[in-house]
């Protein structure tokens, strides 16, 4: 029989399809794992609803659980329970090390332009806070584009959700 820990360990090996340095467990998108006999039910929350990685993640989870010899039941829960605050501290460090600035904490009342234009965002390359918002939107729904005035490097900033 499969244990819950074995399932979590297996899911921790699945990379995010678009940012492969971070796993689905680091990303915090696995809401729960329930094992009963040989059935494994996983509740999974999408990051952004338009993210094309959603199907890839779901299929990868189904495959990994089946490889453990269990019957997978992966449920996509489209509610407000995922937030970028759920990205683990290990996940944040992995993002930063590969040039993606980790998301700022969620704030009450949602994001504001003044906050996005403030210098609260740190360059993932040199650590400077002298950075500017270039574009709220970026190459994927989860990222903005910023520019570091100190090391003169554009970088991608995870949006706070």
């Amino acid at each position: 029989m499969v244990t819950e820990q074995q399932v979590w360990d297996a899911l921790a090996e699945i990379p995010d399809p678009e940012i492969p340095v971070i796993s689905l467990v680091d990303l915090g998108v696995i809401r729960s794992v329930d094992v009963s006999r040989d059935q494994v039910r996983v509740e999974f929350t999408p990051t952004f609803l338009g993210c094309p990685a959603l199907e890839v993640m779901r299929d990868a989870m189904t495959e990994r659980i089946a490889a453990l010899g269990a019957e997978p039941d992966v449920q996509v829960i489209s509610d407000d329970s995922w937030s970028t605050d759920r990205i683990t501290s290990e996940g944040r460090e992995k993002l930063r090390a590969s040039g993606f600035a980790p998301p700022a904490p969620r704030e009450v009342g949602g994001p504001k332009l003044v906050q996005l234009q403030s210098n609260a965002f740190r360059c993932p390359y040199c650590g400077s806070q002298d950075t500017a918002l270039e574009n709220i939107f970026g190459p994927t729904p989860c990222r903005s584009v910023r520019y570091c005035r100190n090391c003169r490097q554009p970088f991608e900033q995870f949006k706070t959700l």
Partner: protein
Amino acid sequence: MNAQTLLELADDELILGWRNSEWTGIAPLLEEDVAFSSIAQNEIGHARAWYELAARELGTTADELAFDRQPDEYRCSRLVELRLVPDWAATIARHYLYETADEERIAALKRSEVPEIAGLAAKIDREEAYHRIHAQMWFDRLQDEPRFVAALDELRPLLDVRAEQTPQFAELWEEMTMVRRSLAGATW
């Protein structure tokens, strides 16, 4: 909430997403090319989520609702149907009008007694917050421009006009459903 209301919402998001994506590659600024493409992707993601809820109620699938209905079965607002490329002032006017109206609609849906609807609306609202910031930035920049003001006045009444067929929508439907109609039974 009945399935028809969900379809209204989903159709708005799908068709606006389609229209916004028409700027991909040709927007007047590179930043806006990226922005409109990303907003389009979000709107289509929201459409899918609403179609999935409606599909459960109607015993069908999101893809069938999005692409297999006849043009006269769509319930989207006239505002989102219009093909506005290459008019940037009108595009920003529509973006602003739509996001402002959508904010109220989402706020009401967040209070829904149906947990799936309230939960989904709350999630969508967090993504839409970025669209609203973007729309507001452009509003602040263009609010004194006569072309922009004229476009706002012209487009505002169309927001509440629904299910009125236009030749532009018929054309969009042809483009949007072409692949699926040409390959009966195909799935992706």
